[in-house]
């Protein structure tokens, strides 16, 4: 009998059938298990019960403005990368009711009890985990926190997964976030053909895993996983030179480069890049009221710096043109963000490139800007 004591940092081999039981354990413990699903000829994050709900044997073909599902060579569950939407919708929902007031003597709050869902995220990529950790810095700060985000975040169980098949728009290696997962997870998977190698990242993860039947992986198996990860680095679809960031995008003279005019001709200002971006955090509060003006509510919705109303103040718009709005987004994400939160706002997931209907490749835009200002 082998002595198998597992602790943080231990990697075990778990059969896929056992993984299903682990998902069941999570649900039994009050977690809502969410993960990737094929939907609308794409992949979105939604409720999952078992591995059968996952996109098995599916890979994705991704280019600027282009996404297609493809049949992959294997029958694995995590060969696609990444989903159309991001995990941020679970922590920072696109719509949240903030308050309702009723007119009495003055105004009174109508109290509504909303239970905070406890999510277990299944299949969080390195870039995505890095994105969650970036949003943590925005929504949970010493001087301020967003209650919705914080409650959901504190209860979050994260099953991360190492990426073995990066998509054409991926550039996590450039941003230092993948394909091997970094950051804080409860469990982290590497998917091989018939087992998951599971690395334990937290006590909670260990406790959950300890109920399952697992083996210790042999050196041979470990080595296969390592080789595949190394190959993934080579297969990265894009690369971004970050050596002159954030300066390239914050230098005032670069903000007047001709490239901004050029890209503004193509940009639709639709805001899709900001909505699919796992770190974009802007929101708006909208008001609604009944006809007799006796009850009013405020709702938080995702906003976007591409929305003209976003930068409207009385008397005019501070960013009235698409040029100004595109520049704001790119220079914030790859520039000013650093000074605000200590990191760049991009983790290299590539969604903004894939989901741009105008096929704008922001990695190429940065390169073009660099070329212009350095020439």
């Amino acid at each position, binding site marked *: 009998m082998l002595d198998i004591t597992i602790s943080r940092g231990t990697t075990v081999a778990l059969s896929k059938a056992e993984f299903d039981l682990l998902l069941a354990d999570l649900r039994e413990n009050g977690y809502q298990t969410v993960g990737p699903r094929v939907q609308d000829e794409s992949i979105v994050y939604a409720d999952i019960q078992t591995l059968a709900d996952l996109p098995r044997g599916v890979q994705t073909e991704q280019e600027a403005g282009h996404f297609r599902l493809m049949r992959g060579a294997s029958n694995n569950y995590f060969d696609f990368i990444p989903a159309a939407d991001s995990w941020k919708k679970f922590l920072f929902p696109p719509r949240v009711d903030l308050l309702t007031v009723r007119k009495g003597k*003055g105004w009174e*709050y109508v109290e509504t009890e909303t239970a905070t869902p406890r999510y277990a995220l299944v299949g969080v990529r390195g870039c995505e985990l890095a994105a969650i950790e970036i949003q943590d810095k925005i929504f949970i700060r010493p001087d*301020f926190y967003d209650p919705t985000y914080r409650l959901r975040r504190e209860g979050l169980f994260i099953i991360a997964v190492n990426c073995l098949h990066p998509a054409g728009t991926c550039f996590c290696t450039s941003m230092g976030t993948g394909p091997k997962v970094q950051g804080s997870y409860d469990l982290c998977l590497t998917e091989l053909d018939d087992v998951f190698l599971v690395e334990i990242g937290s006590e909670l993860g260990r406790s959950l895993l300890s109920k399952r039947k697992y083996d210790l992986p042999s050196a041979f198996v470990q080595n296969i996983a390592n080789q595949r990860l190394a190959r993934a680095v080579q297969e990265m679809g894009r690369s971004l030179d970050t050596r002159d960031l954030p300066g390239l995008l914050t230098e005032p003279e670069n903000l007047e480069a001709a490239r901004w005019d050029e890209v503004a001709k193509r940009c639709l200002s639709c805001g899709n890049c900001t909505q699919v971006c796992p770190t974009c955090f802007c929101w708006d509060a909208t008001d609604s009221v009944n006809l007799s003006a006796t009850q009013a509510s405020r709702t938080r919705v995702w906003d976007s710096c591409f929305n003209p109303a976003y*930068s409207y103040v009385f008397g005019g718009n501070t960013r*009235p043109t698409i040029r100004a709005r595109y520049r704001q987004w790119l220079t914030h994400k790859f520039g000013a963000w650093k000074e605000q939160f200590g990191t760049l706002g991009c983790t290299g997931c590539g969604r903004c490139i894939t989901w741009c209907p105008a096929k704008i490749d922001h990695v190429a835009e940065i390169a073009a800007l660099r070329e212009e200002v350095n020439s």
Partner: protein
Amino acid sequence: MTSLLPQSAPPTAGHPGKLIQPDWAEIVRITPETEGISTFWLRFIDPQVRERYHFQPGQFNMLYLPGYGESAISMSSDPEDEERLVAHTIRFVGTVTKNIGRLKVGDVIGVRGPFGTSWPMKQIEGRDLVLACGGIGLPPLRPAIYHIIRNREKYGKVTLLYGARTPKDLMYPDEHEEWQRHDIHMEISVDRGDENWDGRVGVVPMWFYNFRIDPRNTAVLTCGPEIMIRFVIYEGLARRIPAERIFVSLERNMKCGQGSCGHCQIGPYFICKDGPVFPFSVLQRYVNVEEY
């Protein structure tokens, strides 16, 4: 994150456990100022909030009118008001402010705050001060004026440059005499005079030529239309007042007041939390970037 800037203290009105949930305040007095501008004096209904709420000159509140939304408005009253009232001088221009304009004494509105940085009253002690403002830029400076009057010996020569469109648009005329009595030198001007106006006609930055400035010891505080602010800054810099001693109060679209919603960003700064009052030195690099 930005070490250059002072940290603003957390708000004392509003519920930290809820996003943007205000405390309620009653309108106890409304003072009409000029056409389309009135001052609303508020008293928090909850005595605990009334007790703990303090603001610094230059800070702002988010005022909530149910059904209409919130608006960021600077406080215009004395931070040390004896009745613990908080006043906002409001121009009725947007959906929220126009409808605040229809409220009456006894009506209730929501208040979150105070937010943002303040005029650096401590840091500029011992200095000569130039307060330059136009139009609705005077109300955010009025708490600073009260502070100066209360601590007059701590400041050197104080000059208030104040411009309005017409003589009818000059705000707080009843107080001007009191301010002058406390040795605040005033240069008041209008864009267009009328038959009774025998004062100056022109724009605020022009009056820098009317008095001597010791650049080694002067600080400028300015608030008002963007174009006026620009020229005040130029005049200040031209007199070799260092950029870090020219303080500017900015305005942008704001939804949260706490550096979360993203709307008010300029470069790396959230105007609601890193501002609204900035030393010009930190804004300098962006000032000529169009539509930034």
